[in-house]
């Protein structure tokens, strides 16, 4: 199957199928619409795409990004039909079925991009591809936002991705990776994602960045410089 994109009708149909999934319909993969000529248009020079199951966002985009780059789609980040089609193709990774064959796709914006900036990184494929491209030279320093299962990005992605000046700053992500990513378990450290502002945790880190942003040019800093100016409450995570 060649890389393709949904046309407007295809996006509507995919949206309809997502709604049916929410209502409990059992919809098996591969979805019929991904090769239906009424709903799909081809991408010029679109490479061959193989349907696979991915265990992590990292694995998924490591497979997809080279194919997207190869196809040289102009301004692919804003190509809603493309990302919606990819979401439908890899539905078993981004919205796996349970034992009864039912899926829980949650919000549409996780599968069909919108231009609403708040949801940019929430698309389950476009978001990690964007991060992968931002950090392609130091991917091991961005695992904190790529290690997760494709269907469950979780709190680190949600919080760090919510502000463009955080997610696009390699030093901020690398410092978060240093503080909160456990290379042994390949997950975030226990307690780091506490949903209250416990000392040294992610939410405190984000608060502190807001303060530091008034005094420092955070884009000029590297990971070590950011870690160095963090107060002692971060010592347990600093390692």
């Amino acid at each position, binding site marked *: 199957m060649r890389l393709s994109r949904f046309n407007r009708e295809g996006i509507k149909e995919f949206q309809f199928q997502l709604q049916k999934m929410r209502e409990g319909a059992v919809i098996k993969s591969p979805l019929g619409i991904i090769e239906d000529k009424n709903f799909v248009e081809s991408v010029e020079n679109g490479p061959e795409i193989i349907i696979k199951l991915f265990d992590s966002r990292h694995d998924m985009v490591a497979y997809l990004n080279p194919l997207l780059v190869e196809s040289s789609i102009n*301004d692919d980040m804003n190509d809603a039909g493309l990302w919606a089609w990819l979401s439908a193709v890899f539905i078993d990774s981004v919205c796996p079925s349970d034992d009864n064959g039912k899926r829980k796709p949650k919000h549409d914006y996780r599968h069909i991009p*919108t*231009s609403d900036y708040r949801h940019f990184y929430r698309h389950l494929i476009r978001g990690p591809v964007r991060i992968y491209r931002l950090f392609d030279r130091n991917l091991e320093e961005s695992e904190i936002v790529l290690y997760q299962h494709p269907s469950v990005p979780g709190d680190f992605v949600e919080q760090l991705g919510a502000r*463009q000046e955080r997610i696009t700053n390699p030093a901020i992500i690398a410092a978060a990776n240093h503080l909160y990513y456990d290379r042994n378990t390949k997950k975030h450290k226990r307690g780091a994602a506490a949903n209250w502002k416990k000392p040294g945790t992610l939410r405190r880190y984000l608060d502190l960045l807001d303060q530091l942003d*008034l*005094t420092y*040019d955070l*884009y000029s800093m590297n990971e070590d*410089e950011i870690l160095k100016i963090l107060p002692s409450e971060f010592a347990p995570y600093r390692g």
Partner: protein
Amino acid sequence: MRRRFNYTGRQKLKQKDIAISITQDENGLQKFYADLKLDEYKLPSDARVWVEAYDRNAVMRFPYGIAESPASEVATTLDAFSGSDSYYFRVKVVDSEQSSRLFASALSISPLRQDENDDIRKSLLRITTRDLGPVPWSLEFSNSDYPLLVINNEIDAGKSLARSNKFFQALVFPAVLKQILVKILVEDEYRPGSEPDDDDLWKESWLEFAGSLPGNTSLQAGLEVSEDEIANWIQYSMEMFCKQLNAVRKIRLELKEVE
């Protein structure tokens, strides 16, 4: 009224000292030129200058020389924003020796753009398209950025509706202006200040725009005004805007009631 204080020692660069213009390069890509007047600020002559272009999804950073003689060091092509002109700029003057400390900055700078008539205009309103269901357009506000006019992406004309369709402009823009002034003056209870906070620069720009409409007067900084006076000023600003836009005539022309 909300007021914040700057305890960081960071200087604020005034908008009047920064002019950023957008043009196109030979490949049709947008690029910028920044004219920065930094001599009146107390800055080390060798402090690094950065210009950042940003929108909601991307940031591009450009080294722009030193405070003594700011100038571009690299090509200023804005290729991260292809297909979009809803981006803004920040200028930062940074200590080149010690921990990237900020000496001065300016945020939310709206660039000057060359339009079809070769006029230079400053963009106070960002425009985008999105699925809005049954709603044709909506206006969105964030804390520190210029308001965003969202047009339903079911409408094929999309952004060009707002940019060049006179019928749409005559019907919608007066409501947009009123909604923005109500947001600034009534909901946020913001009043013009002599030294506005960075987050409030867009509000100052809109109040300045409304106050400069022919026949209107500006709201003075520091003056107490009643709720009624504010409501009257908003209504009058909207009327002067309609007058300047020639809104009724444009609608009648579109409906072929006049020639």
